[in-house]
């Protein structure tokens, strides 16, 4: 279980960007962190990965303060543009002892990426695929995905959405932020609503649908319009 407790963050005059944020991400479930733009969703993911310092709070995996169990797939390209896809994979393989080369090659084939393709020359969608490929091949139990479906074509979205229902998700706890709720509604196990840096609702998605008689997307509209 990935546990986030009491996260607080302020930026200068911008106080309480994150205000005592606490939630859990269980294994074998896809948890979706929902909020409008600027609510702090990406900040939470980055804080979990230690990319952004926080003023207070703890992040634990199975009771231990450790980041080695978490992989992060950001919403932008993080590999140097001069690298080819093959070189990027080799780079990651060198640094991560648990790297799963088989998964990397399978996903490279699935996404129709060539090892010789230079990352700088890839489209936004293909760069997103490379990010995802790296995230899964890192072979870590927890995976954080920041807007994996943002700004890409329908076909690529479908490919990525397929991954979320495939065997690649087995044994993983996923925390995802996305605005494309409709695309992944059927996959979401848990929902967390974030507003003004505070968690306003955290529920099992099925229970939420039963309770409110609405889809998660409709419930979201309701929450953010009031």
């Amino acid at each position: 279980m990935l546990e986030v407790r009491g996260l607080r963050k302020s930026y200068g005059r911008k106080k309480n960007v994150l205000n005592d944020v606490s939630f859990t991400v269980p294994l074998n479930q896809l948890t979706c962190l929902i909020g409008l733009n600027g609510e702090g969703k990406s900040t939470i993911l980055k804080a979990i990965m230690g990319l952004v310092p926080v003023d207070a709070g703890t992040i634990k995996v199975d009771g231990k303060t450790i980041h080695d169990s978490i992989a992060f797939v950001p919403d932008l390209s993080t590999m140097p543009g001069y690298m080819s896809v093959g070189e990027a994979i080799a780079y990651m393989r060198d640094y991560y002892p648990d790297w799963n080369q088989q998964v990397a090659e399978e996903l490279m084939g699935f996404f129709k990426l060539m090892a010789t393709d230079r990352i700088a020359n890839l489209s936004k969608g293909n760069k997103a695929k490379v990010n995802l490929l790296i995230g899964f091949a890192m072979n870590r139990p927890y995976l954080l995905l920041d807007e994996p479906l943002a700004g890409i074509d329908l076909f690529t979205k479908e490919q990525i959405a397929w991954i979320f229902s495939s065997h690649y998700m087995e044994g993983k706890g996923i925390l995802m932020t996305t605005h494309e709720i409709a695309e992944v509604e059927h996959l979401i196990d848990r929902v967390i609503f974030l507003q003004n840096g505070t968690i306003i609702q955290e529920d099992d998605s099925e229970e939420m649908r039963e309770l409110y008689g609405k889809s998660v997307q409709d419930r979201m509209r309701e929450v953010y319009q009031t």
Partner: protein
Amino acid sequence: MKKFFMLSNEEIKRSFKLYLSILTMLVIVELTSVVYQVLHYQSKLEDLMKKERLTEMEAVDQLNGPLTFGDATNYFKYMIAIGIMFTILYAFQIWYRDWYGESKYIYRLLMLPGKRITILLSKLTTVLVFVCGFMGIQWITILISRRLYEWLLPEHLQAASKIIGESAALNMLYTFNVIDTFVILALALFVITMVFLFVLTERSYQKGKALLTIAKDVALLIVPFIALRYLFDLTSMLIPNQQVFVYLSFILIYFIYISWKCVRLLNHKVSI
């Protein structure tokens, strides 16, 4: 250790072409300048001899004597200045390119397993290796220039001098005492670490606070130095050798402080 070598190689790889281009350019410009200076001198000599109907000896006298190797390598100081400028700019760029490059490589770096100090050390090593390369190539260029000078200029038009000539810049860099080379590299290390501190501070705080923090760190270097100077002048409680020892110790302590601060910022404060 493996991570350190891999990261260092990656950093060097990213600037490999740029570095080799600049090295090549500096060598070409310097060698060309030597040829130019020699030919220009000879041409001035010939002009004088023709126009004023002087003997070669008289013309040489008018030109204030034979062409010294220092004169032939007069443009080297500008190339050295360019090399220093490049190094300082590169010390900034080696960090900022990870934040502002075409990809956000800084995400990848900060998430790599192991200690973040390796990132710092790999970048520091890269810049220092480049500095060593500059110094080494400059030395080889001096040797080649010497050969060029001796080959192009007739012996009687050459002024006797030591191998590096009279140039102040070259004499400062090449004293033929190995300890001095390490002193220069230590100075380079200090300056590069300061630049790294400025970058990491800027990347850790909001603009205003970042500026204040940088100002504070600079003041921490300058103010105690001035205070010590004032104290020594006022009280003369230490003899000059002891004063030098205190100054050097202070610089060492300050260096340890800025190194520690770089590591601390990288571990706990830096934000993407």
